[in-house]
């Protein structure tokens, strides 16, 4: 059977891909997709620890709360992106720099 380390490697790779997306993408919506990947990497780790590491029920409950947080975060962040688009006409996160001046 597949052991704990393999799941952790999968989680780590997902996390790295999410970080890569957050760093490299210019599109605000795509950056949020990277954040979703990162949250899912955390979920994989929690569930893997629940199965193999004796974290039994707590791991599942924690990933349940991660999913709830992801839903709330996505809704608020997308509303903010809509506002940025309404105010500046772009969602390129490099051009949304009004606070810098």
């Amino acid at each position, binding site marked *: *059977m*597949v052991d704990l380390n*393999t*799941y952790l490697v*999968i989680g780590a*790779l*997902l996390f790295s*891909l*999410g970080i*890569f*997306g957050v760093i*490299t*993408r210019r*599109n605000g*919506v*795509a950056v*949020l*997709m*990277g954040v*979703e*990947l990162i949250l*899912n990497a955390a*979920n*994989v780790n929690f*569930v*893997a620890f*629940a*199965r193999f590491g004796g974290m*039994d*029920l707590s*791991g*599942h*409950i924690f*990933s*349940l*709360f991660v*999913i*709830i*947080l*992801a*839903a*709330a*975060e*996505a*809704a*608020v962040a*997308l*509303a*903010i*992106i*809509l*506002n940025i*688009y309404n105010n500046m006409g772009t*969602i390129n996160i490099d051009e949304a720099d009004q606070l810098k001046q």
Partner: protein
Amino acid sequence: MTGSFFFYFFAAVTLTSALLVVLNRNAVYSAVLLVFCFFSLAVIFLLLEAYFLAILEILIYAGAIMVLFLFVIMLLSLGREKAQEHFRYLQRGLSLFLVIVFFLSVLIIFLSDSGILHQPHGTFTAGGVNALGEALFTKYLLPFEVASLLLLVALIGTVYLAKRKV
């Protein structure tokens, strides 16, 4: 051994689609690939015996959150690029191939006599709805209520942010 084959297959699918989500320049393609990624992650959760979480992954992530993403992408008309004509046949062939592979793998599972889908591992029942629901309403009642408050705050904040200024 079929279980580990499934794991490696779906782990490869997850990582490949996550890589394509990150690398793709078109936001609509990224979103659809992300849905694909969530579905294969749900299969990995199933292999980890987290049945309820696998369902939630599909319902909330692939269902609710990605629909929200797609709505925003459509609203901002980001996916304006035309579909490439010369990819069409490749796309059809590839999707046909994938459907056939999926069908054959399901067929193999049902035809093999050993109950791969129902392998009990000791007395591990934490992934079921019963144990999870009971824990949620006894030991984790306070975090549960706080989560509902958080959702309410997110709801109010989103409505406030997204409404037209009067």
